[in-house]
């Protein structure tokens, strides 16, 4: 599904990704872990198409297409979803209006007819159950005055509505208490299927108690320096990142 080869990316003069290789297949869950400043969030942003970063080398194929050639909205229409670490406040635009625009723009891209109000109502109702989100929250201006938990829950609700092929969760656990974490993780798990894949970017292991990864990769200084199964995450939890740093730095 996703094939990243020798990906290099910089912001300004500073190179942050220094040759990432990663293969993700349908049905898989990959965790990207690593110490602060290792390039985790940059990788997520580059995949979603944030224009602040310049890709200097390498390639990213997504379902047979050159992802790096596509605008952010085209990537979304192709099936990529980024759950933001810090969801942005959109004053004056309700979640429902926002998602209606998003869904119909994506349908237009795919050559499908727009959905009408009745279809939306039905679909929203169905998806609301995934993350236990309240209707009143969806009528408010998107993310404006939302608590940390409400913002993250709203991200997962959006994900449920947009039904992506590849979901990238960028530090979705940050700022969440344990109950909110469980609700968000349950939502993600319900959306998991044989045809879609998930990349979980996280600093801590605790989210991985709920979203169990098939593979764990450790990012350090812009490269994947170690890959393994979920046991690697447990080892990191126990021993920290220092042993990996010293292995790499030697």
């Amino acid at each position: 599904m996703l094939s990243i080869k020798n990906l290099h990316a910089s912001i300004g003069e500073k190179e942050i990704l220094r040759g990432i290789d990663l293969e993700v297949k349908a049905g898989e869950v990959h965790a990207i872990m690593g110490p602060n400043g290792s390039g985790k969030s940059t990788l997520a942003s580059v995949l979603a198409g944030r224009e602040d970063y310049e890709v200097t080398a390498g390639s990213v194929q997504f379902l047979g297409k050159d992802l790096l050639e596509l605008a952010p909205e085209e990537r979304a229409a192709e099936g990529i979803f980024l759950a933001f670490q810090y969801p942005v406040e959109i004053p004056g635009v309700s979640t429902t209006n926002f998602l209606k625009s998003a869904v119909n723009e994506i349908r237009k891209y795919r050559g499908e007819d727009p959905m009408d109000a009745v279809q939306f109502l039905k679909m929203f109702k169905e998806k609301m159950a995934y993350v236990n989100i309240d209707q009143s929250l969806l009528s408010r201006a998107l993310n404006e005055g939302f608590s940390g938990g409400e913002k993250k829950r709203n991200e997962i609700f959006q994900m449920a509505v947009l039904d992506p092929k590849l979901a990238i969760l960028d530090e979705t656990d940050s700022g969440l208490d344990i109950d909110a974490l469980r609700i968000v993780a349950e939502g993600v798990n319900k959306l998991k299927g044989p045809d879609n894949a998930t990349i979980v970017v996280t600093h801590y292991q605790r989210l991985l108690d709920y979203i169990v990864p098939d593979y764990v990769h450790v990012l350090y200084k812009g490269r994947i320096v170690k890959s393994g199964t979920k046991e690697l995450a447990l080892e990191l939890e126990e021993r920290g990142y220092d042993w990996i740093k010293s292995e790499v730095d030697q």
Partner: protein
Amino acid sequence: MLTAELNNSLQEIAQNLGLESVQGKALQEFISKGFPTSKWEEWKYTSLKDFNGIARNWSPKANFTLSSSLDWADFVVQTSNGYVSWDKSRIQEGFALLSFEEFLQKCPQFESTWSKKNPLLEQNSLFDLNVALNPQHMVLWIKKDTEVTKAILHQYQVAASENASAVQARWLIYLEEGAKATFIEQQSSTGSGDILSNFVQEIFVEKGAQFTYLKEQDFQTGVSHVDHTFIYQAEGSQVDTFTFSLNASLIRNNLHFYIEGPQVVSNLNGLYVPGENQLMDSHTVVDHRMPHSESNELYKGVLMGNATGVFNGKIFVRQDAQKTNAFQSCRNVLASTRATMNTKPQLEIWADDVKCSHGTTTGQLNEEALFYMRSRGISLPAARTLLLLAFVQEVINKVEHTEMRELLTEKIVSKIQQSVDLSN
């Protein structure tokens, strides 16, 4: 300063008016001042310097073209090039439309209100020009405790003629004690050509009266519209104004509120959306002269193409106006890198027990928000449109009159969409 040629032709008109007449004197006053240029403090960003050399037809004829059948207004009155026309059969009990002279005869008590009205706070040669040359000084008189059910609609139109022209129109609205009315004014133009549209409107709102005034300004290219709206409010009255500036080569709005009694509420709402080669200038004055009153001002602008916007908001709180609450907010989005916005809030407070605040902001659309929306599949033009519409909605949604709210939404959406599509 006027060019010699223009000076001579206006002198000739002044002679014909009679040099000692009110009109003749006003015209001479205008001739001595000329059109405002950027050297005038209040016209720094809206210079009419070029107008000092443009020969015009100073008394264009009426040219009525609008239809007046509308089910959402109780009464429709039209102004064409300053001349007024209305269906007399639709006049209802409780209000009247008549000339200023006739009004003074029928309503002698107004004489004292009129004579003690405050002098204008700004040097304003266009006001003199209007006094000199307006063809018909009309009065809309809404009588004591009358409640206008739907709305009174004023279709204000200027029509282009072969040569450049100058239109003067002058209105007065008088709401007696306890009267309540919604007044909708649709300003527009026909034909293409250079028109100076110079409109003076004085509104007197007596004790406990309530007045909602919705102004839509949608002119063709070539029209420069200067709008003077002066509102005088007595005790316990409430006035809500909504000024929507959609299209014209140039719009200058002078909106003044004179608060002359306690427990007065004044709400000023404005939205301007200038595009390519358009300039829109809002100069507002709220003059708190008496205690225990409040004013709320919310102005917003979206500037597209190479548009220029100006906002100057003055609030005066005089020494006697204790316990005044006065709030002002002006927020602008530059939707293009070529657009310019000039803002100047100006508060002068002499009373010590008052609450006043003001804030002006001018910025661009939030890049983070745009990326967030794009990452959900919304294209860049659609994302920009969505954010801009959300921004203007705050003002539009305050309009209670459903048909006008829908009409304005439609027009503003289409203007913003067009501009966003062009820029991509």
